[in-house]
């Protein structure tokens, strides 16, 4: 009884405050009238509504410098105020942006020649091929010490890895060795180390955006330190951003953008709210149209509410099993652990936020193959919960090791629901695998990363999200001594398949696809090299009047380019 009255009150408050803000927005923004008239042509539903989005983000922007950016918050705003050769469209497909149509590609698929569109920086200067060369060299330059530059370029852009090696060894290096050249102001030639299947994604990634050399050098250390010390060439520009520690910033439409006519939204106001509960309170009080990601504890109370937006994020959480550990080097022990806990219950009853149990490590709803099928169509579930099977493997494994009990350390995860998840998995494993003692070690994120790096763990709860739209973003993790393997998994067959997918099969989408699917099957079904747990679902609260928000799986989180504010229902 109380609650129903209460929710009525909430709705009233929400409607009332929307009404209020609508009024005040119209009053103090006289300019708001003009675009509204103009938008009559594009869609009548946006007729008299101020095109302003008020949203919350859960962290500050650590940097707006495209070459130094390493997190999705940075990528999101860089993507909305900047542009590269390609850009992700509304349907999440990379499409030519600054590139004037598709590039000319050499026969060996290593040299790409791009023609550039006419476009301008916000200071009026044209965007040229030299801007790309400058930015890319800056990104790989050891003096810049960018985290993502070498990560995205190494092994892909010609010469990148060598520059990093030389820099680390404090030897001389020549930035001109990087495979990027300006043939003239409007022509850019990129040379790859080897063919890359997902090259369009690569060139859409913020690390590969251009930078105006004159502006960057002139500003020196002050470059990208606030809204005034930045140049923009994207659909929006920053009107207010006082620096990396600012908790409020404003984006406005960029009239100089080459497709400015397609951008309806006039203004985006962002505030940082780090507490998920507070964000929900702000939303309920009508202070904002959009929250950051909701913590899983809040989600059940909005189940079925049309203000909650949910999507499957291609982020998979799994238990890494350190195969340098004697017991975990045994395939039966690994199988027992990977099959020994009920993931369905975990996802449905404990997380209860739309996350799904994962019996795979390449997520679903992530990539579509040449045949138009999702990656998961062929081998859906590769390793499922089965207490009996798990017990059989466990006993077999113990016999092979010649012991009757085991103590295994478990390095705790860093998700919001980590404590519950860890306690649940510990209990499940100990119940289903007699003789097993799981020793929980929950540590802060920074410590977990370091111990991952040093491989100082037995089991580790961790997650991974992709950086480009290809299954390789996941499958290349587990090649022997791969940079992010860090659990000692090694299988010759696996290595061969993935090396082929990265190399000679790069030009053969179908075989490439199959090779990766087979590799995943080997890794999980045969070797149980990893114990997948769940694939995350994301939930936000969004004012239903906001339409056309593009949500991305990798790189930036959202694009506001196509957002329209319609009349509140």
């Amino acid at each position, binding site marked *: 009884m109380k609650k129903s009255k209460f929710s009525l009150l909430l709705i009233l408050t929400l409607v009332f405050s929307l009404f209020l803000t609508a009024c005040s927005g119209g009053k103090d923004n006289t300019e708001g009238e003009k675009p509204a008239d103009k938008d009559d042509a594009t869609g009548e539903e946006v007729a008299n509504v101020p095109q302003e989005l008020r949203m919350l983000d859960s962290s500050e922007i650590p940097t707006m410098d495209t070459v130094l950016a390493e997190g999705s918050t940075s990528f999101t705003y860089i993507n909305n105020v900047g542009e590269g050769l390609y850009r992700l469209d509304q349907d999440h497909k990379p499409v030519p942006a600054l590139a004037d149509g598709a590039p000319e590609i050499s026969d060996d698929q290593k040299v790409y020649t791009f023609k550039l569109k006419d476009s301008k920086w916000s200071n009026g200067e044209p965007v040229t091929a030299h801007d790309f060369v400058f930015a890319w060299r800056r990104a790989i330059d050891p003096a810049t010490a960018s985290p993502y530059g070498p990560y995205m370029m190494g092994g892909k852009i010609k010469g990148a890895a060598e520059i990093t090696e030389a820099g680390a060894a404090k030897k001389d290096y020549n930035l001109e060795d990087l495979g990027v050249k300006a043939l003239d102001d409007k022509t850019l030639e990129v040379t790859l180390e080897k063919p890359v299947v997902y090259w369009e994604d690569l060139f859409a990634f913020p690390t590969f955006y251009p930078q105006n050399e004159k502006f960057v050098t002139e500003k020196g250390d002050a470059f990208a330190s606030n809204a005034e010390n930045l140049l923009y060439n994207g659909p929006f520009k920053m009107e207010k951003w006082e620096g990396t520690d600012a908790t409020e910033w404003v984006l406005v439409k960029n009239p100089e953008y080459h497709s400015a006519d397609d951008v309806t939204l006039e203004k985006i106001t962002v505030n940082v709210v780090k507490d998920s509960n507070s964000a929900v309170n702000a939303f309920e009080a009508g202070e904002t149209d959009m929250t950051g990601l909701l913590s899983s504890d809040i989600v059940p109370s909005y189940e079925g509410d049309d203000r909650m937006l949910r999507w499957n994020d291609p982020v998979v959480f799994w238990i890494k099993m350190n195969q340098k550990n004697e017991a975990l080097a045994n395939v039966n022990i690994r199988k027992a652990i990977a099959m020994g806990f009920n993931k369905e219950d975990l996802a449905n009853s404990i997380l209860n936020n739309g996350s799904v149990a994962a019996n795979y490590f390449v997520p679903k709803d992530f990539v579509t193959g040449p045949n138009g099928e999702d990656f998961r169509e062929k081998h859906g579930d590769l390793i499922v919960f089965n207490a009996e099977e798990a017990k059989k493997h466990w006993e077999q494994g113990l016999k092979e090791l010649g012991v009757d009990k085991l103590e295994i350390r478990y390095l705790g995860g860093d998700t919001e629901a980590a404590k519950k998840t860890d306690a649940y998995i510990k209990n499940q494993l100990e119940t289903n695998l007699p003789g097993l003692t799981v020793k929980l070690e929950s540590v802060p994120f920074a410590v977990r990363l370091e111990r991952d790096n040093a491989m100082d763990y037995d089991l580790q709860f961790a997650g991974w999200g992709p950086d480009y739209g290809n299954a390789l973003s996941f499958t290349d993790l587990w090649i022997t001594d791969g*940079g992010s393997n860090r659990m000692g998994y090694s299988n010759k067959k696996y290595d061969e398949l993935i090396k082929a997918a990265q190399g000679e099969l790069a030009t053969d989408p179908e075989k490439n696809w199959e090779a990766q699917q087979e590799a995943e099957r080997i890794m999980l079904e045969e070797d149980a090299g990893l114990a997948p747990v769940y694939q995350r679902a994301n939930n936000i609260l969004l004012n239903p009047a906001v339409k056309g928000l593009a949500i991305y799986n990798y790189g930036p989180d959202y694009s506001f380019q196509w957002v329209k504010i319609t009349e509140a229902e």
Partner: protein
Amino acid sequence: MAKYLLKRVLYMFLTLFIIASLTFFLMKIIPGTPFASANKLGPAQMEIMKAKYGLDQPVPVQYAIYIGNLLKGDLGISFQFNNTPVTDLMFKRLGPSMQLGAQAMLLGTIVGILLGIFAALRQNTWVDYSSTFVAVLGKSIPNFVFAGLLQYFVGVKLGWFPVLFWRGFEYTILPTIALSMLPIAIAARFMRTEMIEVLSSDYITLAKAKGASFFEIAFKHALRNALIPLVTVLGPLAISLMTGSLVIEKIFAIPGLGEQFVKSITVNDYPVIMGTTILFAALFVVIILVVDILYGIIDPRIRLSGGNK
């Protein structure tokens, strides 16, 4: 007195130097990586990143550089916020934290003292018990629960005050109330005890007999007596409130120092940790000195400068 002050100021710098040095070396053995993308960096890139922040040097060299810069007032640049000087980060965030802390201290001390006085005057009655109840609840219910409830019921449900953000005085009301629970509890409890003690002492009987008003007894005699423990506890508390509260700042989305400091510890942002520690310690030793001097003013019998011979 002047000599004593000079000596204390010298000690202050020594103390700060020891704190700065100890924190520096603790930083060196603290586990965890300062790089957010550490799971993606190759060994070569890791080397380059370390070199950028001077982490590739031997520890004594790093220490010498650090102390040298410190003397120049340079606290380095933050790791998590790219290329932003630590001093900028700190002083921008200090303003809101200071204001909030000061308001909460003011409100808390006044309310607390009044609560304590009433409790003492009506000792062992329902007034006393409910004052104790309020004070104890203020301390035993964690801050985040109280702040969360306040935000939800007073902000969202009743709509009396803004729910969150930091845009003007009305936005400070809810966080101030939430933060003042601790000073209220402390002031009320100390005040009650001292008041009861004073009320039973001979000079109050005399003052009463001479016809001193209730007001005079409470504020002239009892308050003065309660001041010694109050300034001892509230002095340092003021500093810790004014340098920011993680919980309150997070819940009410206030751009303050507390949230930034705790985050810098969890992500191993060494320069920010060091800078904030030194700032906090400096404020703290200053307030301790002030409190020590206040003792002599409150109670002229207290002499700190001399020994007990």
